[in-house]
């Protein structure tokens, strides 16, 4: 597969390490009430769609960026690639 890195352009997916569902960005607050249930959902449950899937890839043998790749799990077609850090910020994560 080829991942069109937002900075570097097309890169062989072999340079990347796959982590999984991009929801892993949305880590719950460990100090909140109900944290255990929220973390169970966060760590263990997956939509696992047959179709479009937003997922985390790490460019380990490249620029060490974490990326959010939107990829179709039926065809492997990739429709968008974003820097995960930007996605994280857009989802309200900060320091």
């Amino acid at each position, binding site marked *: 597969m080829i991942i069109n890195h937002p900075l*570097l352009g097309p890169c062989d997916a072999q340079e990347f390490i796959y982590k999984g569902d991009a929801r892993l960005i949305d880590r719950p607050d460990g100090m909140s009430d109900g944290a255990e249930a929220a973390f169970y959902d966060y760590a263990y449950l997956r939509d696992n769609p047959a179709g479009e899937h937003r997922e985390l890839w790490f460019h380990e*043998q490249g620029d060490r960026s974490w990326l959010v790749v939107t990829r179709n799990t039926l065809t492997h077609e990739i429709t968008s690639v974003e820097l995960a850090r930007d996605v994280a910020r857009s989802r309200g994560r900060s320091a």
Partner: protein
Amino acid sequence: MHDLAPLTALGTTRPRQDTIGPLTISEAPDWALASVAARLEQERACADALAGLLGGPAPGIAQHVQGAELGAFWIGPHIWLIEAPYTPDLAQRVKSACGGSASVTDQTDAWVRFDLTGGGIVAVMERLSNLDIAQMQPAQARRTVIEHLGCYVIRHADSLTIYGPRASAQSLHHALVTAAKSAL
């Protein structure tokens, strides 16, 4: 000055050089490296400091810049490797220049450097790396995998520089020489 004698990454006192057909592969131990990573919200100041060091703008994505004394190449968002003829205090010098705008780390001995000069560079590299070496323009710098090793590859007008993980210098050297013998 201390009296510890350095070894090259290949474990000898004199750098190794191999000529295979038109191509020469040279171990180049006399380089210093330091990484510069911009601090959060100091990206501009860091770039300015680098520009001061390099005498021109810091390299853009996947680019290498050669200044009067120092060179630099991009290795990730807001992070660069600075290279200079060997000096023990490169990191210190870069750190002084950057002040609080960057995190600077000595990387000199994290890497082994090989320079490929002469003919056949493309033919050899296409047996080693998935980079499109034939289309790579001078001053481009990319990370790639060579026989399972993550390396930086910098294209110069008539040569090519490879930085590989120092501990695997022998494996990398073996891969380069083997590929050259095979392809040339």
